[in-house]
């Protein structure tokens, strides 16, 4: 093996999800949701679930591979993987780990999954209730800075200050997600459109984030199946080949909540990753037909798109318009399922799935002829991660 690359050697061949619920509304235990999403992905691919020999997840998912493998009656377990750190920033990393395992022969059929039932386990967006805090938390919680929106807001404030970017840029990102959710019956915000006025009049959560700049919190589960490119040819769906994947962050990026100390504060932390990603894929930003970009908060999407090379910070105000960001005809259709803001906060795995559906021509906001599809996970955390998928024509 002369060249170290993932390019074209694996593919996503099955995707699936449960019904997506408002947080706390799932009628079943989280583990059952997880099983059902995995079975849905297997059915989509035309694979018997007992063939699954690897499991990859992220953000300390509570449903561990040995338990899942046992429950499903899988023949054997070869790969039991957790992407370490970064919370939702590991979503593409989990796909990368699965692809690496298959490409190198560690496993043959790996499922990437994420399940959340916050009614059973508590929410992300509430502050700690303990009597004492220590370590990095002690440096922020006593000042009332204790939720993800609060931790990441100063990063966006600084970026907007440095590059003279106004609120309309964030608004366009929110409107694009809600726009696309209106044609997606899976979306929790299906039938609940958002207008410019609705955004402008919505309450502040923490500046510069209005209510609609913030992701939902939801219950549900999602899964996708990775196999070798050879195996993929014999299955039900058109394969979404992994053209490239990259995981990481730059110099001394502190984990949340000590992110305020990161030297490069005004960043989503894709700068070092994006060049590696494009080099492995052999494509550039101009070749990308459709983008799924993790929205914990819209300001993170703004910085992610800049750092992936779609436009410069100075071009952001002109580029970020609803027209440019919507399928089918926009310059850069973004979050075409509705994403974390409006489809479901399945911790970004729904974005990986949507990137695959675009290459199959199965999106509810389809970009005609999409061949190269990007899905980024994480912004503003460490490590972040991105996958570039390609159709068979790109190999």
């Amino acid at each position, binding site marked *: 093996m002369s060249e170290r690359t993932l390019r074209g050697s694996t593919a996503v061949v099955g995707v699936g999800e449960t019904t997506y619920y408002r947080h706390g509304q799932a009628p079943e235990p989280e583990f059952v949701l997880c099983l059902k999403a995995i079975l849905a992905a297997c059915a989509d691919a035309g694979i018997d679930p007992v063939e699954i020999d690897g499991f990859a997840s992220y953000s300390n998912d509570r449903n561990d591979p040995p338990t899942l493998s046992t429950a499903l009656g899988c023949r054997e377990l070869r790969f039991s993987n957790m992407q370490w750190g970064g919370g939702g920033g590991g979503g593409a990393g989990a796909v990368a780990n699965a692809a690496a395992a298959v490409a190198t022969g560690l496993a043959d059929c790996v499922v990437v999954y994420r399940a959340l039932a916050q009614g059973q386990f508590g929410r992300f*967006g*509430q*502050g*700690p*209730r*303990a*009597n*004492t*805090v*220590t*370590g*990095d*938390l*002690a*440096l*922020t*919680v*006593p*000042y*009332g*800075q*204790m*939720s993800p*929106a*609060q931790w990441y*807001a*100063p*990063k966006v*404030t*600084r970026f907007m*200050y440095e590059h003279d970017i106004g609120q309309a840029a964030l608004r366009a990102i929110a409107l694009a997600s809600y726009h696309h959710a209106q044609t997606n019956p899976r979306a929790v915000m299906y039938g609940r459109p958002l207008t410019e006025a609705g955004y402008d009049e919505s*309450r*502040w*959560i*923490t*500046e*510069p984030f209005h209510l609609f700049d913030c992701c939902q919190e939801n219950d549900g589960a999602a899964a996708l199946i990775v196999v070798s490119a050879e195996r993929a040819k014999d299955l039900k769906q058109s394969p979404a080949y992994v053209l490239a994947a990259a995981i990481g962050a730059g110099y*001394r990026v*502190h984990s949340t909540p*000590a992110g*305020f*100390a990161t030297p490069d*504060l*005004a960043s989503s932390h894709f700068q070092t990753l994006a060049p590696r990603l494009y080099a492995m894929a052999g494509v550039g930003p101009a070749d990308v037909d459709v983008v799924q970009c993790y929205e914990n908060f819209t300001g993170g999407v703004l910085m992610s798109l800049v750092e992936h090379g779609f436009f410069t910070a100075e071009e952001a105000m002109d580029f970020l318009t609803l027209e440019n960001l919507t399928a089918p005809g926009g310059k850069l259709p973004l979050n075409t399922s509705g994403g974390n803001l409006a489809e479901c906060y399945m911790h970004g795995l729904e974005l990986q799935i949507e990137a695959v559906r675009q290459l199959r021509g199965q999106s509810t906001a389809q970009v005609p002829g999409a061949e190269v599809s990007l899905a980024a996970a994480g912004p503003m955390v460490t490590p972040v991660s991105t996958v570039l998928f390609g159709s068979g024509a790109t190999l």
Partner: protein
Amino acid sequence: MSYLPPGLSIPVPERNGLSAPFWEGLREEKLKVQRNPRTGAYQWPAQWIAHDDQSFDIEWVEVEPRGRIYSWTRVWHPVHPALKDACPYVVVVVELPHAGNVRMLGNLLGDPTAPVEIGAEVEAVFEHHPDAEPPFTLAQWRRV
């Protein structure tokens, strides 16, 4: 009188004592951060090892409690019951130019609805909580 109402989690040093000099310093109205005695490189938050030469020999130094606002947010939505009637409040990221540009977090004292200017000079105000169990002191910030 504290900037935020009582009821939030009380900051305490780690059981292994890593940040104890910082918290003890605040109680004496001294702002302390870590410095590498060989290179002069500052670091904050506290670490066990110097990031620039990987030595475990690190000193704590008192620095002038002044800085400038590097970034900020104004919180309108309370995520803790104790903050239900405390919004809006302002959180600032303060850069210390005389200490290697390390950054600290705190509240910006004064009218929470007033404009916040990045680059503005600020100085620390030591906010004592002597009746807390255990007692502690926070470094808050006000415009110079």
